[in-house]
């Protein structure tokens, strides 16, 4: 497994570079310069890179933990929104970051549970219900921010997180490290422990790989699906929570800082091979590309869409062999 990954990753990166080169050349840009900016542009400001990676670690987990039970959580987006909004409210009213984190995480977990329960007991496909919930939440939150929660001084933003409830950076070995990134890393390690060293993790993995074997062993695959969605949803909610209390401190009325984090988590999860530790690295890598893309727009003047396309090519190339393998085993196990 490790050996195949080590072979796959460099091959995928080389292929994506070649494709990107052709694309840039054909549009009349200088590929070498642009790739230089994309790759090295983000490294100059490490704590910003880690802050940007934090929500992705969590939405990556929000996708990958349910995925291990064979559940496709595309609802990370909605769980992220609800986590962000309720954390903001909790922080605003209680002025406690701990409270904000707890409320945001729980809200995400409840949302995940809801999706799982209607899947298990009513047979409603999680992808359909998740996408519907994503949009319901998107517009509900937009509505509540523009109607009730806007900041009277800056009307295009929500009320801010009070200073007491904000999380900043701490010094580790002379380096500034964002607190929210440390929390995300700890959560990733805890997730790893749960998945590979606890009963519920083992049950979830067996249920995902072979529901019949799970029933034979006396586990309930349905319960595993629910557990995994509660955990995954909680991760999404925590992601939204950390973004608000550790980075943006507010939600803008276009929700541009929130939108797409849950979907990006799917790419991050697959890129990290659905392994919580792998997800830490894949989210840093992904953020590097995103920041680098933004830099390339500024410095080399390429359009946003082109920067997104370059990132997209790279993520697709890196995920392709893995997606192929899991789809293959998924189909085989359901036969």
């Amino acid at each position, binding site marked *: 497994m490790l050996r195949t990954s080590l072979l796959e990753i460099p091959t995928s990166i080389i292929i994506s570079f070649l494709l990107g080169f052709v694309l840039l050349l054909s549009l009349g840009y200088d590929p070498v310069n642009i790739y230089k900016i994309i790759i090295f542009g983000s490294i100059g400001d490490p704590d910003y890179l880690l802050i940007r990676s934090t929500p992705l670690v969590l939405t990556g987990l929000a996708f990958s933990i349910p995925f291990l039970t064979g559940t496709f959580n595309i609802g990370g987006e909605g769980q992220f929104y609800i986590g962000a909004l309720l954390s903001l409210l909790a922080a605003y009213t209680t002025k406690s970051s701990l409270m904000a984190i707890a409320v945001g995480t729980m809200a995400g977990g409840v949302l995940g549970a809801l999706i799982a329960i209607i899947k298990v007991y009513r047979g409603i496909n999680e992808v359909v219900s998740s996408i519907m919930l994503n949009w319901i939440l998107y517009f509900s939150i937009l509505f509540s921010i523009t109607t009730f929660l806007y900041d009277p001084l800056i009307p295009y933003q929500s009320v801010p997180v009070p200073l007491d409830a904000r999380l900043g950076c701490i010094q580790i070995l002379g380096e500034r490290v964002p607190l929210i990134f440390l929390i995300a890393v700890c959560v990733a390690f805890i997730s790893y422990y749960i998945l590979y*060293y606890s*009963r519920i993790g083992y049950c979830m993995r067996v249920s995902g790989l072979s529901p019949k074997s799970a029933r*034979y062993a006396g586990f309930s695959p349905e319960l595993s699906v629910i557990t995994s969605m509660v955990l995954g949803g909680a991760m999404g909610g925590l992601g939204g929570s950390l973004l608000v209390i550790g980075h943006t401190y507010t939600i803008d009325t276009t929700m541009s800082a929130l939108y797409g984090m849950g979907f990006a988590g799917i790419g991050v999860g697959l890129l990290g091979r659905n392994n919580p530790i792998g997800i830490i690295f894949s989210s840093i890598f992904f953020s590097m590309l995103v920041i680098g893309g933004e830099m390339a727009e500024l410095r080399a003047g390429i359009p946003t869409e082109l920067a997104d396309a370059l990132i997209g090519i790279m993520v697709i190339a890196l995920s392709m062999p893995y997606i192929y393998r899991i789809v293959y085993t998924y189909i085989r196990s359901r036969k």
Partner: protein
Amino acid sequence: MSFVELRDIVKVYPDGVVALRGVSMEISEGEIHGLLGENGAGKTTLMRILYGEIRPTRGEVFISGRKVSFRGPWDAIKNGISMVYQKFTLVPTFTVLENLYLPLALMEKGTSIDDVRKRAERLLDELNLRVPIDSFVEELPVGVQQRVEILRALLLKSKILILDEPTSVLTPIETKELFRMLKELKKAGITVIFITHKLKEVRELADRITVLRKGMKVGTVNAAEVTESDLARMMVGHEIAVVQRPSPSIGEKILEIRDLWVKDDRGIDAVKGVSLELYEGEILGIAGVQGNGQLELAEAIAGMRRIERGAIFLNGREITNLPARLRYRYGLAYIPDSRSVGLVAEMNLTENSVLTSLSEFIRKGRIKWSNAVRRTSEIVDRFNVVTPSLRVAVRYLSGGNQQRLLVGREITKEPRVLIIAEPTHGLDVAATDFIRKILLDFRDKGKAILLISTDLDEIFQLSDRIAVMYEGRIVGIGRNEEFSPEKIGLLMGGVHAQDISS
């Protein structure tokens, strides 16, 4: 010149399984021809070759003296051959008429749905049949759905109709209806090939019967000239080599099943009032043709399937409604017939070795993988599992090694009762002997084994007592020596014990 002739058909599947070892048979025009044999005799494979669905490795097919080589079922259909499977191929949300129209629209360009309606109604009149032509298929009973399948075949102008175990899904009344219909078809000049393992039915319906055994033809006989006993003897065959087994030392009663009723996945009664007792130190073999409720019985005992009625006692304690995990803790172990259920193919050996006894390996909420590794290497050593390491996914192991791991895992738990289904299915000779020896040793240690197998050699070699299941009931039970191959064949074919003695 015969109507259909199969000459020297050999079929070797890509995985090396030899399904047919040179079978020749002839079918005359307008007869009902029974094709009889046990599981794995090659009946269905032979007919799928005639239907063009699979290609023979060697051998030739002649129709009306002309050599044919079908590229697929559509080729066979054009040549007037249709096959009706146990699982139907109708679109459940279409009406009967739409289902009839579907293949005709593809085969005959320009046919309208009204043409099909007229032709179908005329055909139903001729055959004196009733099919509600505008009903949705999913709302029809199984027997009527089957009639629709046959009707569709006739509309495609089939001259030869192959039916694969057609009565296995039918109630007795539906079966009677089907037989009446087939006799009508025969009058209309249609040739019917009828695959079955039920002795009574084949003798009642068929004109001639061909018996297959282990990929070879035993013979073709006229139905009127043979008894059910003759057929049973042909089907089961040779005297089974007696293996020297130390006589069992029977202990306490350990498992008791009282009047058990269980439904299958479709919600139909699969186990109908089974009562059994199992004693320490014995192997009780459950023989029977596949699909007669044996697997549902095993799953019900193991706690994987809901029990509708009846009770199960393990060592005096009622376990009827306990979850599987508790049953395992009280000393029951179950090895399912399918290795893809008993093992998780994508997980490694160590992860698989804790599947059914996870609690043993948990200390303070944490799985002690070091203990699991120790257990796994113990299983690997003791049961000669050949593997490059304990960390490879079990799907990379051969079937024999997977089975050794699976059996090893359950036996290492030292259960008091072991339920094992098809323990040597698909294994080579060495692995088969090894697994059988393990089971006998386990019995000699005073453990109780309930063995479910469709392989009669295995039943005779291992069992101290034998019970035969047919259509969800135990139709005969006794000591190994009380059963002759002929008697067991009759019981498996649905001839009741009282009929045999009379």
